[in-house]
C-alpha cells in the first residue's frame, strides 16, 4: 500500500485561502487503509475547514466526495459533474492520485492535502512501516524476505555495518537492524550460506535512475478495430 499523512492544517488553510469553494476528494484505497485520505478523513477535514472559515468570518463552501481509486481514469471520471462547481479541488490521495486528477481536469486547480510517504504495511492498528522502495529489481529471495534497500538505513546489500547493537539500528534505536533480522531469519531456516556471496551493486537505472518509469503491456491494451 502507498502510505501518506495529512498535511498540517495550517498548510492546508493557506493553500485554500484564495478560494471561496473547494471540493475535497478522498480516495478509498491505500490512503483509506492508512487513515489519511478515506471518506472519514474527508469528512473530518471538511468540518475543520468549515468551522475554521466561520470562526474567521470567511466564506468557504466545502464539497466532499470519495472515489474508490483516484489513480484510475474510470473512477476519476465521476468527478466530471462536480469539478466546475468549485474553484479548487483539494485531493486527499497520494501524489499519483493528485496528478491523475489534474491530468484529467487540466483547467482545474488541484491541491495536495496529503504528504505521500512510502510503500508499506499495516503492522498493527495505527502503525505503518516502510518495507519496499520499488527499486525495480526485487532481491528478497536472497535476504529472507527482509528488504535491506528499504529497511537498512545505509541500504547495505552486504551488511551489517558496525553500528548494529543489541539488534537495533544506530540511526534510530527504535528501529530493529534489518541485517540482524536477515541473519537471524536465515539462521533459523538454515540458509546462512546465502550471505557468503558478495552481492553486486544495484542497477539503480531500474529504480529512478532514468527519470519516471512506466510499464507498458500490449496484452493489456484495448484493441481498436
Amino acid at each position: 500500500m502507498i502510505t501518506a499523512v495529512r498535511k498540517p492544517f495550517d498548510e492546508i488553510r493557506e493553500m485554500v485561502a484564495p478560494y471561496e469553494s473547494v471540493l475535497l476528494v478522498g480516495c478509498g484505497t491505500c490512503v483509506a487503509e492508512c487513515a489519511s485520505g478515506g471518506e472519514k478523513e474527508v469528512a473530518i477535514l471538511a468540518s475543520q475547514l468549515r468551522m475554521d472559515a466561520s470562526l474567521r468570518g470567511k466564506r468557504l463552501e466545502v464539497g466532499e466526495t470519495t472515489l474508490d481509486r483516484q489513480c484510475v481514469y474510470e473512477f476519476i471520471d465521476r468527478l466530471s459533474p462536480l469539478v466546475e462547481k468549485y474553484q479548487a479541488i483539494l485531493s486527499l490521495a497520494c501524489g499519483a492520485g493528485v496528478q491523475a486528477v489534474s491530468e484529467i481536469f487540466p483547467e482545474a486547480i488541484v491541491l495536495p492535502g496529503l504528504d505521500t510517504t512510502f510503500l508499506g504495511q499495516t503492522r498493527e492498528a495505527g502503525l505503518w512501516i516502510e518495507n519496499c522502495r520499488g527499486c525495480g529489481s526485487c532481491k528478497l529471495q536472497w535476504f529472507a524476505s527482509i528488504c535491506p534497500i528499504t529497511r537498512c538505513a545505509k541500504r547495505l546489500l552486504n551488511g551489517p555495518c558496525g553500528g548494529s547493537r543489541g539488534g537495533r539500528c544506530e540511526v534510530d534505536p527504535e528501529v530493529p537492524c534489518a541485517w540482524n533480522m536477515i541473519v537471524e531469519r536465515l539462521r533459523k531456516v538454515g540458509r546462512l550460506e546465502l550471505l557468503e556471496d558478495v552481492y553486486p551493486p544495484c542497477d539503480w537505472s531500474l529504480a529512478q535512475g532514468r527519470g519516471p518509469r512506466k510499464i507498458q503491456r500490449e496484452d493489456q491494451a484495448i484493441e481498436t478495430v
Partner: protein
Amino acid sequence: MRPFSHLQQVLESRTFAVTSECGPPKGADPSSLVRKASLLKGYVDAVNVTDNQTAVVRLCSLASCAILRQMGLDAVVQITTRDRNRIALQSDLLGASALGIRNVLCLSGDHVCFGNEPGAMAVFDLDSVQLLEVARKMRDQGSLCSGDPLTSPPKFFIGAVENPFADPMDFRVKRLEKKVKAGAQFIQTQCVYNIQRFREWMERVRDRGLDERVHILAGVTPLKSAKMAHYMREKVAGMDVPEELVRRMSSLPAKDQRAEGMEIALEIIEALREIPGVRGIHLMAVEWEEAVPELVTRAKLTPRPSPQGEI
C-alpha cells in the same frame, strides 16, 4: 609482486605494524593537520585520514593525504560510500593513485543523521564490500565497475574495517571473510578495550584461516578521561568498554586520568601483540596525537622500519 606502499611492505615483511590517524580540520587551513602529522612522523608506518567522520564536513581525505605525502608520510585515504556514487568513488580512487596515495581504506561511513548536514542525501550507491571489489577490479583487471576498461590501472594496497564487538556477533567473522573475498588486504578493527572478547573473535578468525589471508591491525584508542570512558561505553554504538576500565579511570583524580589512560593503552597493546594473527596496531588518539609517540616508544615499537626504494 612489489608492494604498492610502505605499509604493505612493512606488513608483508611480517614486521609488527603501527599506523595512526589524523582528523582533518573543519576549515580550509591545513596547518593543524600538518602539525598533527609531524608529531607522528617517525613513529608510525602510515597515517590515515578520516573521510568526513561522523558525517561532519571537513577538509577532504584525498587532499589531506596529498599533503601527508608531501611531508614524506605514507598515507591511507579513507573512502566512504556515504557521499559519493560509483562514478565519484572510482574517480577519486584514480586520483588517489595518481597522487601517490597507495593505501585505500574502504568503508560505508557514519550515517548523515549524525553530522552537521543532517538533511543531506545519504548516497550509499555501493556498500563497503562492493567498494572493495570495485577497487580490486580497477587495480587487477584495469576495468571499472561496469567493465569499461581503464587506460591505466591504479595502484593500491586495499583495506577495510571490521567491528568485532558489533551484532550479530557470530556473523562478524563471516562478514570479514566476505571483505577478504572482495579484496581487503588489511583490516583496521574498532578500538579494542575488551581484550577477552577480541581474543575470542581472533580465534574464530584463525579458525577460518583468515589471519593468513589478511593483515589485521587492532584498533587502540587511549582513554583521555573517565568521562570519555563512560561516554564510549554508554553512547557509542558498536563500542565495548568493560565496566572495570571505566571504574579504573573514575577511581583517580582528573589530573591523573590521562596517565592512567596511557597505562591501559600500553597494557592493551602488550596483550594484542601476544594474540596470534594480529599483525599490528592502529592508534586512534582522537585530538591527542601527542600520545602516539609516547605510546609507540613506551611499547618498544621504535624505531620504525624505513621505506625501501621508491614507494
